[in-house]
């Protein structure tokens, strides 16, 4: 009877299109809002994901990666002395001012990495050689820096600009995940970063740590915390900690959660109502099928097939439209848009819930339907 169910569905074009529109809209809204939400969360964790260190050591009272509470320089050696530590390197991070030749200023996030190992460097180098950071007065910049400081004609490998009145030369253009504050990243060596930034008593932002083989990042973080009294987190732990802080302090979670919930409700309402109408208007036909010998179970399977079919089509179109939106509106990383498979899986489950729940209303109606209705003219 699958064939009959599908012909009933596609034959009633107006209701089919209305159902499809409702489920497509619902999918698109949930995927689009979910992707922007996850994009924002990714941006909030970019300070961690760009550096990609197994363990981060910092002040024990820190809430999130952008909240820098400098440590004493001795922290690096203290951490190195903890059993299970393979390596430990310093990292500087701070917001500075870059000045262009035309006199314009731009805020940049300056990241100072260990010159010998270059741990903390971005993985993708788009142009130039990041190893040349070891040369005097050099920096690597991300694409956003290029854009903000005047575009590729002005900012390229070999060009120069000033950070806090220190002239620096670009040796590499790198790819880095944007930050929540949308400030461009500039990479240099740790010592050079200390030199070109204003004087402070403490400048060590983080100690990046690698565990010895066989030791997990989480276990090592716990050990460092216990033995040094410093705050230590694995990359994942620090990422979640940062995300939780953002969710708690910005209201982003409530805003996006409300929109996603509304998308679910709208999809549910449209699908449920249209499906119910579809069933009610075909009640005589369903009654005839029951009289002829179709069981309630068979009619329920027909309704579910109709529901899941239109749901799957709506899911495909909805995702297509949301992706198209992400590709156009989010082009060049202007909009945080991260469409991930867990999100798509979650939306799929949500949509199947919408389809199941809206089918239940119709199935209940059919279960109560007496086939004698067909003898009443």
């Amino acid at each position: 009877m699958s064939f009959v169910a599908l012909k009933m569905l596609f034959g009633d074009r107006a209701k089919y299109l209305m159902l499809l529109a409702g489920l497509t809209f619902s999918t698109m809204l949930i995927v689009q809002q979910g992707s922007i939400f996850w994009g924002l969360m990714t941006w909030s964790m970019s300070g961690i994901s760009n550096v990609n260190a197994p363990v981060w050591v910092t002040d024990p009272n820190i809430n999130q990666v952008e909240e820098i509470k400098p440590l004493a320089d001795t922290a690096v050696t203290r951490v190195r002395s903890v059993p299970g530590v393979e390596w430990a390197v310093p990292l500087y991070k701070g917001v500075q001012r870059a000045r262009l030749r035309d006199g314009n200023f731009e805020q940049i996030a300056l990241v100072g990495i260990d010159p010998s190992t270059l741990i903390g460097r971005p993985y993708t180098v788009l142009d130039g050689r990041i190893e040349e950071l070891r040369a005097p007065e050099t920096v690597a910049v991300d694409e956003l820096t290029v854009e903000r400081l005047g575009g590729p004609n002005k900012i390229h490998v070999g060009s120069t600009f000033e950070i806090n009145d220190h002239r620096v030369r670009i040796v590499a253009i790198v790819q880095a995940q944007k930050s929540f504050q949308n400030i461009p990243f500039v990479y240099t060596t740790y010592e050079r970063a200390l030199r070109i930034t204003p004087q402070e008593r403490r400048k060590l932002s983080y100690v990046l740590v690698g565990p010895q083989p066989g030791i997990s990042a989480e276990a090592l973080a716990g050990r460092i915390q216990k033995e040094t009294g410093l705050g230590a987190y694995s990359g994942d732990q620090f990422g979640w900690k940062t995300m939780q802080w953002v969710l708690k302090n910005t209201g982003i979670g409530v805003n996006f959660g409300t929109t996603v919930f509304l998308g679910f409700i709208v999809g549910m309402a449209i699908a449920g109502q249209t499906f119910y109408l579809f069933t009610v208007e075909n009640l005589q036909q369903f009654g005839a099928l029951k009289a002829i010998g179709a069981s309630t179970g068979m009619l329920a399977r027909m309704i579910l097939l109709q529901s899941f079919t239109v749901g799957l089509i709506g899911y495909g179109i909805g995702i297509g439209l949301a992706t198209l939106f992400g590709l156009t509106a989010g082009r060049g990383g202007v909009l945080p848009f991260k469409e991930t498979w867990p999100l798509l899986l979650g939306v799929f489950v949500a949509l199947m819930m919408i389809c199941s729940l809206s089918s239940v209303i119709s199935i209940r109606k059919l279960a109560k339907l007496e086939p004698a209705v067909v003898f009443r003219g």
Partner: protein
Amino acid sequence: MVNGVKATVQEFEHDLSRWLVRAKGITKSFGEGHTKIPVLKGVDLDVARGEVLLLVGPSGSGKTTLLSVIAGILEADEGELMILGENIKAFSQSAKTLFRRDHLGFVFQQYHLLPTLTASENAAVPLLIRGMPKRDAMAHAEEVLRSVGMGERLASLPNRLSGGEQQRVAIARALAGDPQLLLCDEPTASLDAETGHRVVEQLRAIGKRPDRAVIIVTHDSRIFEFGDRIVHMDDGLVHQIQDGSEQVSG
């Protein structure tokens, strides 16, 4: 004693071989308490194999309710009901559904064709319900449609067919599963005289086949001549049974 039991069994087997439907003392009421309305008040009715039986009577006389009870769609409050030798009163709802699927055919006054299915797809529905593969079901349905003169309209949707054509598709649908008992509710009510005659002629031809029977509920006196017997119902009881050849009027 043994001879007596043997005689009863033989009588019963004789009954089964002769009667397709045996109903005794069927009662059916709707509502509860003060609002209870008795619709069938003890109906006795037998339908023989190869018989075309017309159930006639004024509105509210209980014809359609009796048809629904015989179909196993409504449950009789009291009485005995044997269809094809089966006591369907003892069946569960799902067993009744299966029984209808496998042994009964229906023709409704309003046809109840699925509007988005073609004539041949509509006729194939009972076979699809039985789980027959689509290709086989369609081939058989087309064959039945040709037998009722609808060979030229196989791919037509119901809204492209006249009332008579739609009823013939409905008959083809009822016949596709090769039912032993065909139950028809006002099959000519929406048809003109000529088309109605043609439709009833087809129903009669089906009823006259061996091991088959047709029960037709009707108000239409123009088709009385087609019945082997005409059962008059009034106020929930069988009022009169006449031979079809007597040509009773309304």
